[in-house]
């Protein structure tokens, strides 16, 4: 945009409470979900704040969120906003790949989530859930934050890397994965290459993980013609426009990226779903009756039988409204934007908050109340737990299928109750992916 044209536009209102040097970092760090709600309440549709020097414009409301979600990478770049993922996923992978390669890598990632693979995954997940509950006995007490982290790590590795790898899942793999997770905390979004022990550990873990996954790749190349039905098979088969295959680094990167997209998001949501099932009794009973009607006659849990479970779906959707696992979505502004007469200049970051959007009283009256019977908004851009538009989370169907598979198996067999006082089950805002504050203890008892 020319200087003259830009000068004719307004600037976004600025959020109060800025401090020298750090801007709003401190308040953001305490509880970023609530901070973003304050920005919106104070400034309205556009609210500019300062993240340690990076000027960031929060866009709120369905119209602004639609503009954010529908604008393509050329103008609003995901890659520039998510550089912290580069050392985790790997050099040359997704947000570090040239645009053409990035598109192909994302396409190959989605190939692994297509219809035939999904059928295979639903079988795998049902088996994992059965194996998990097999040792439960008639009653007991568990920390489900831990339990679901483990279950979803098992399902994720099983669906991604195959049965052999899953059943040889070592403590080493868990530690490497954990080291990568620690390399993606908030500070990495300021500068992921600072001299920091967590970043050294991250880089070593990335290297070792490639050796491990490279080992499976080499083994599979030697056993050409075997069908595995997992994502690794799809990643190895994928090709770029010139017909070349992904190399070990890129395949490892896609495996890691897929784990990061799906693991904590799913385990956090599963934990919240079970917690809400335990404390929203009338609604939980409705779900139970539905599951008994659908599966009580011994109908097996399969891809087909999981496709339509409306009450359970509404229940999970309400969990995702109140506890969206990814709160903050970001893009970097590549070209000046004129948003309804306001200039959002190149170089700034724009952001939307799913958490805030889901508490917009125009669309969700009495927003803190859990109510799976709420009418759906008449816009696609108010309820956005998976984002929306061309870059919507491609794992949304996988996520819903997995959650339904878990609760269709659990709920008819066991009843659950909270162990601790109701108010001790709260959102934990200390990590970038939302989850309940641990421990998340529930008691279970076999239904008669």
């Amino acid at each position, binding site marked *: 945009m020319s200087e003259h044209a830009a000068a004719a536009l307004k600037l976004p209102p600025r959020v109060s409470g800025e401090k020298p040097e750090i801007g709003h970092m401190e308040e953001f760090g305490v509880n970023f979900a609530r901070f973003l709600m304050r920005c919106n309440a104070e400034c309205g549709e556009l609210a500019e704040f300062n993240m340690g020097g990076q000027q960031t414009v929060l866009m709120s409301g369905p119209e602004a969120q639609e503009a954010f979600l*529908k604008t393509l990478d050329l103008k609003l770049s995901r890659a520039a906003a998510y550089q912290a993922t580069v050392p985790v996923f790997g050099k040359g992978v997704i947000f570090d790949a040239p645009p*053409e390669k990035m*598109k*192909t890598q*994302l*396409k190959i990632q*989605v*190939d692994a*989530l*297509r*219809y*035939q693979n999904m059928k295979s995954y639903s079988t795998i997940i049902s088996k994992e859930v059965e194996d998990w509950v097999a040792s439960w006995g008639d009653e007991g007490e568990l920390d489900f934050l831990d339990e679901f982290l483990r279950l979803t790590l098992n399902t994720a590795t099983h669906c991604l890397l195959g049965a052999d790898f899953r059943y040889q899942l070592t403590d080493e793999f868990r530690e490497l994965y954990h080291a990568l997770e620690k390399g993606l905390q908030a500070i990495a979004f300021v500068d992921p290459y600072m001299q920091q022990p967590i970043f050294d550990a991250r880089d070593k873990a990335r290297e070792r993980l490639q050796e491990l996954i490279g080992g499976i790749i080499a083994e599979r190349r030697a056993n050409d013609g075997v069908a595995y039905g997992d994502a690794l098979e799809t990643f190895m088969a994928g090709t770029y426009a010139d017909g070349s295959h992904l190399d070990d680094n890129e395949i490892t990167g896609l495996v890691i990226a897929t784990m990061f997209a799906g693991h904590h998001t799913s385990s956090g949501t599963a934990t919240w779903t079970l917690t809400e099932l335990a404390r929203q009794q009338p609604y939980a009973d409705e779900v139970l009756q539905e599951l008994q009607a659908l599966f009580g006659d011994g109908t097996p849990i399969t891809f087909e039988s999981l*496709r*339509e479970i409306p009450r359970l779906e509404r229940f999970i959707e309400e969990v995702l409204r109140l506890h969206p696992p990814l709160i903050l979505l970001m893009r970097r502004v590549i070209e000046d934007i004129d948003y309804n007469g306001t200039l959002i200049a190149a170089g700034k970051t724009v952001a939307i908050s799913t958490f805030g959007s889901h508490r917009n009283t125009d669309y969700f009256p009495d927003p803190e109340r859990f109510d799976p019977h709420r009418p759906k908004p008449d816009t*696609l851009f108010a309820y956005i737990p998976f984002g929306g*538009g*061309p870059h*919507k989370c*491609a794992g*949304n*169907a996988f996520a*819903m299928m997995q959650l339904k598979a878990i609760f269709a198996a659990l709920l008819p067999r066991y009843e659950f109750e909270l162990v601790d006082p109701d108010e001790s089950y709260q959102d934990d805002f200390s990590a970038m992916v939302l989850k309940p504050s641990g421990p998340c203890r529930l008691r279970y008892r076999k239904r008669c």
Partner: protein
Amino acid sequence: MAMKILVDLALCQGHSVCLGEAPEVFDVVDQDEGYPQVKVLLENPPEALREKVMNAARYCPNNVITVLEDQ
């Protein structure tokens, strides 16, 4: 009344549920760049395929498919 199929390609990521449910009506084809996308083979499918078409629309993870009833 006849069915008429509309698709919103801005939302399609090529999950291929439609192809699995109603291969007579939908294909998913590679694009020059980005995700493969749905291609409608029969814009006005015959009544015999109604259930399959409705399942394709209902189970599409991205709500890409709309089925209109043509007068």
